[in-house]
């Protein structure tokens, strides 16, 4: 009797170990599949052109050609693209956070007639993507002579309904007593927002800032509409233009194209690895809505 029970116990433990083993195995194999494109991008960027054209692809470069990373800058003004992207990203981030914080304050702690209706007006904007409004916005920007300018890139993205919504939710959770105490101290709204609310809501502020940064860095659709020359092109757009500039000779220049792609994605990968904690928390907040 007892022995049988022991045997069935051992069996149960064994199946559990087997299951764990397979869970690890499948999870690791799947992760490797997801990683492969990153790996392939980097490996391809270091190969020589002859190696790219081999009938049997090599999993590791026969000869490392680091020069691809130098040559690619001769093919396209990647430095200019990166500078444009940095300036646009900083502009969009700053404006979204400042205007968004003021609006979030007004919609959470402010008291004025029509507040809730105006908030619905703001939320309504969430349902109207740029893919619907881009033609009229292009017309406006063109009239202002803002095509190929930073103003044209930044201003149409200066406010985000998503940012306002997220910040309003966190500002709401701050106790009114803090605000009242600050008002008694004679602090104005700017001080209340920047010295009380924002420091108290640091995690959400960070999350929103990081997400805005990533979105802006990767921006493609609007920069494609708002720029017509390399002058103000952003990097996500530029890397595709780089590929097109090899018209017909893409295959043998895949190494340089991949070098451009690596340069495009490395800042975001570093950011993701360092700050994923904040990306993930913001993310579960959205999911639980």
């Amino acid at each position: 009797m007892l022995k049988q029970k022991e045997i069935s116990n051992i069996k149960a433990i064994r199946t559990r170990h087997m299951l764990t083993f397979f869970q690890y195995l499948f999870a690791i194999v799947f992760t490797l599949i997801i990683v492969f494109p990153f790996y392939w991008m980097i490996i391809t960027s270091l190969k020589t052109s002859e190696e790219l054209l081999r009938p049997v692809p090599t999993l590791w470069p026969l000869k490392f050609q680091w020069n691809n990373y130098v040559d690619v800058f001769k093919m396209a003004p990647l430095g200019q693209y990166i500078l444009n992207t940095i300036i646009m990203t900083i502009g969009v981030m700053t404006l979204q956070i400042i205007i968004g914080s003021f609006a979030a304050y007004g919609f959470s702690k402010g008291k004025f007639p029509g507040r809730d209706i105006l908030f619905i007006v703001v939320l309504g904007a969430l349902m109207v993507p740029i893919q619907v409004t881009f033609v009229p916005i292009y017309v406006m920007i063109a009239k202002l002579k803002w095509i190929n300018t930073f103003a044209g890139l930044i201003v149409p993205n200066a406010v985000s309904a998503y940012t306002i919504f997220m910040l309003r939710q966190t500002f709401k959770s701050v106790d009114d007593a803090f605000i009242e105490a600050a008002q008694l101290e004679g602090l104005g709204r700017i001080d209340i927002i920047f010295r009380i609310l924002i420091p108290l809501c640091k995690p959400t502020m960070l999350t929103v800032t990081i997400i805005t940064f990533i979105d802006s860095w990767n921006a493609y659709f609007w920069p494609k509409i708002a720029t017509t020359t390399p002058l103000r092109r952003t990097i996500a757009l530029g890397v595709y233009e780089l590929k097109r500039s090899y018209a017909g000779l893409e295959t043998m220049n895949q190494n340089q194209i991949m070098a451009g792609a690596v340069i495009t994605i490395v800042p975001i990968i570093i950011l993701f690895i360092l700050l994923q904690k904040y990306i993930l928390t913001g993310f579960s907040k959205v999911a639980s809505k």
Partner: protein
Amino acid sequence: MTTEKKINYRRREKLKDFLCVLPAVIFFALFVYYPILKLFQISFTNWNLISDTYKYVGLKNFKWLFQGSGFASLINSLTITFRYTFWEIVITIAGGLLLAALFNRESKVFSALRSIVFMPRYIAISASAIVFMWILNDQYGILNYVLGVIGLKPIMFNTEENALTAVLILTCWRVIGYGMMIYLSAMKGISPEYYEAAKLDGANSFQRFRFITLPLLSPTTLFLFVTTFIASMKVFQSIDVMTSGGPYGATEVIVYWIYELAFVDFRVDRAAAVTLVFFVILMGFTAATMKFTERNIYYES
């Protein structure tokens, strides 16, 4: 303080609060609501982006779209867009749920693996599309090489039948980890008491998943369905980089078509008419899901 002063003070405070939201409200009026009105206006003209003048032509653009030569293109691009959307939703929900079940383990290794699977969502689509095109290359792509090694025929992705599949492979890589993360964070929220009670009743692990986890995840599934639908209807970047709508319009999704009408053919008038149809579809969908949600979804109270 006299009463009059108090009233003045309060009024000023209200005004200041209002001024805080004013920049944002003006922004949305200018860059969201005004453009929608402008779309209606443009769609009733014969405006060509290169000329400065235009005439009002009534419903001409809508006649072109629904009765004229535009109709076939509209049906074509809506069919492709919905096909793409259908598959993106299936990948996000079914793939996400499967992965959530696979990756649901508390350990440092698993948490690192989850981050990696989730990361593609934050990588520029254009850069990812470029590497996928190289992987899927007819002649030199590693996928076709591997298929050849295991004795399968190579797949030509630049054909009418397969071009959308190529785009969907990239989409799968980008979104499957997102579905997984959303499901995992929802699964964490399910109270362990349910599982303990079910265990006492003799439910096996499949039954527990089927009768506890799945029903309690229904709000999450709805969330994913709605957000993925709206996001995937807007697909543009991967199409632009990988196929440019081709070959022969086989991947001409609706936003790409609008883009071409406006900036390749310079027919902003027609582009505006198509955009309005697109907008109506998005709004109709949102309204329908809101109505549906009120009745059919089980929420844990």
